[in-house]
């Protein structure tokens, strides 16, 4: 190949890249290995993860995924990581995306869904930028509650800071765990982000927040867990008018936790905002014989046509995750999703009851919750979580890592995957650890 393009060797091929920009070599990368050796090594590394009973949620949620989901998603017809461009897209792929969009609009109660984004955090950043565009660029400020996932807030900050968008953090009420609006100044803003449930698992007063946004001339952006919508009111019905944009992470819909990704983000909105929406859209049409067909539509928003003024440069994404989510929703159906959501809520309630029955554990926030709740623990939270881990239990997320004022709070999640016996095991271990802690020095629960 080098000979046919007229390069003497590989060095000559890369000659035009300045030496200072070139990597001097890959000293720490070992030599190639056989498939057998690599497989064995991968199994060894995987085993280091251990087998834990997981009660951590905090943005990624363990749900049962029917075996058929990934069996079908792995078929050759679907098996690509990308959302294809028109020329590459088969009618089957386009129809699947169209079905996905239909499912997401029904779940969120809005008019239009795109064909997905990278993940929940980037979807939120895109929604913020979209709201600023919809304000014709006049208002470059967005209200972002402190109860939005801390990693999402960091990503949004990264993506909007160089575009002159100001983010104002809204505080939360320390008793209810809900977002407070009373501390807000009266400067104009383009949008209010409303997390439901919020990072504490708490259900926000979404109707009041949506109406407040609209009464003050702001767009309302819902940030939701899609699984919760099987039980909770759709964002399109929040308040008097419903939200304008809805985003979230699609992981709970058939995507395994797998150490943090790939997941996918979703976005739906009102029809009136569709031209400000980023990402691919599939529409239904008819061919010249009048038969139904599917096409990528509204492409004039996108980078290959609109260039620098595109609504977004996110076009390709984890399309395979959308395939899985569509299959997952189709296999479960509305009743199945409702069962999963209800069971998850029920197990979290049951676990909260068991944990707060322990002498030194109290509920952290008074508000209703979906499938995640927070408890105050009279003890060193990180040490308690370590002790639980030594017993094979991932007990939750230490909120003090992001909220210093919540240093004694554990955020936990119990989905439908947890049996009553699992909950009992967690409660017993926590009670034992906390009672030991009272009687003995810290080393007592090192196992």
């Amino acid at each position: 190949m080098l000979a046919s393009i007229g390069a003497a060797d590989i060095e000559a091929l890369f000659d035009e890249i300045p030496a200072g920009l070139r990597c001097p070599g890959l000293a720490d990368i070992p030599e190639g290995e056989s498939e057998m050796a690599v497989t064995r090594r991968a199994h060894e590394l995987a085993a280091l993860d251990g087998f834990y009973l997981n009660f951590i949620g905090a943005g990624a949620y363990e749900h049962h995924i029917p075996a058929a989901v990934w069996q079908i998603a792995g078929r050759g017809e679907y098996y690509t990581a990308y959302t294809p461009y028109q020329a590459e897209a088969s009618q089957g792929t386009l129809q699947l995306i169209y079905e996905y969009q239909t499912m997401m609009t029904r779940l969120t109660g809005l008019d239009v869904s795109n064909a997905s984004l990278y993940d929940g955090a980037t979807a939120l950043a895109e929604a913020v930028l979209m709201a600023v565009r919809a304000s014709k660029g006049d208002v470059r400020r967005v209200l972002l509650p402190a109860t939005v996932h801390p990693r999402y807030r960091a990503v949004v900050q990264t993506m909007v800071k160089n575009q002159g968008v100001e983010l104002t953090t809204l505080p939360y009420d320390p008793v209810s765990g809900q977002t407070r609006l009373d501390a807000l100044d009266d400067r104009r803003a383009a949008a209010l982000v409303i997390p439901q449930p919020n990072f504490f698992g708490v259900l926000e007063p979404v109707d009041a927040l949506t109406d407040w946004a609209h009464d003050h001339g702001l767009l309302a952006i819902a940030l939701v867990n899609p699984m919760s919508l099987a039980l909770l009111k759709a964002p399109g019905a929040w308040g008097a008018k419903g939200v304008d944009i809805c985003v979230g992470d699609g992981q709970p819909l058939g995507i395994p936790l797998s150490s943090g990704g790939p997941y996918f983000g979703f976005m739906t909105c009102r029809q009136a905002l569709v031209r400000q929406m980023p990402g691919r859209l599939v529409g239904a049409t008819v061919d010249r014989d009048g038969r139904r067909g599917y096409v990528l539509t509204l492409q004039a928003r996108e980078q290959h046509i609109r260039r620098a003024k595109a609504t977004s440069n996110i076009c390709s994404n984890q399309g395979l995750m959308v395939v899985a989510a569509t299959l997952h929703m189709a296999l479960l159906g509305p009743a199945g999703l409702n069962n999963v959501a209800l069971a998850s809520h029920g197990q979290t309630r049951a676990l909260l009851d068991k944990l707060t029955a322990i002498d030194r554990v109290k509920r952290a926030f008074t508000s209703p919750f979906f499938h995640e709740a927070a408890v105050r623990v009279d003890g060193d939270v990180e040490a308690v979580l370590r002790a639980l881990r030594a017993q094979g239990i991932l007990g939750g997320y230490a909120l003090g890592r992001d909220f210093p004022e919540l240093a004694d709070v554990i955020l936990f999640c119990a989905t439908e995957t947890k049996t009553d016996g699992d909950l009992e095991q967690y409660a017993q271990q926590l009670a034992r650890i906390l009672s030991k802690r009272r009687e003995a020095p810290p080393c007592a629960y090192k196992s």
Partner: protein
Amino acid sequence: MNIPNDLKYTLSHEWARLEADGSVTVGITDHAQELLGDMVFVENPVLGRQLKASEECAVVESVKAASDVYAPIAGEVIAANGDLEANPDLLNKDPYGAWLFKVKPADASDLNGLLDAAAYQSHVDSEAH
């Protein structure tokens, strides 16, 4: 190609007409609509916006492209053609009847700096080569 003699033109294919009340009506030329093809969406500037000359102020979107519209002269936006929201194809059918927006010019004599029909014709001809 239709290039009426009573209008002023820009290099970026807008037309402008001074009205009896002193306002200036702005649209896109027959040539522009022909290049863009079937129109599907028009985004006009908000009323009251102060435009600078040559500033991007509207977007016309066809089935194959989205194109910015530039203000022919400086002034305040005093009207936008609401008919185009539901019927953007009016731009194809009647490009000189289907105006986009009207401005109250900062200085009506700025119109003298625009192209007349003959100059616009030769601009279009030169672009074709």
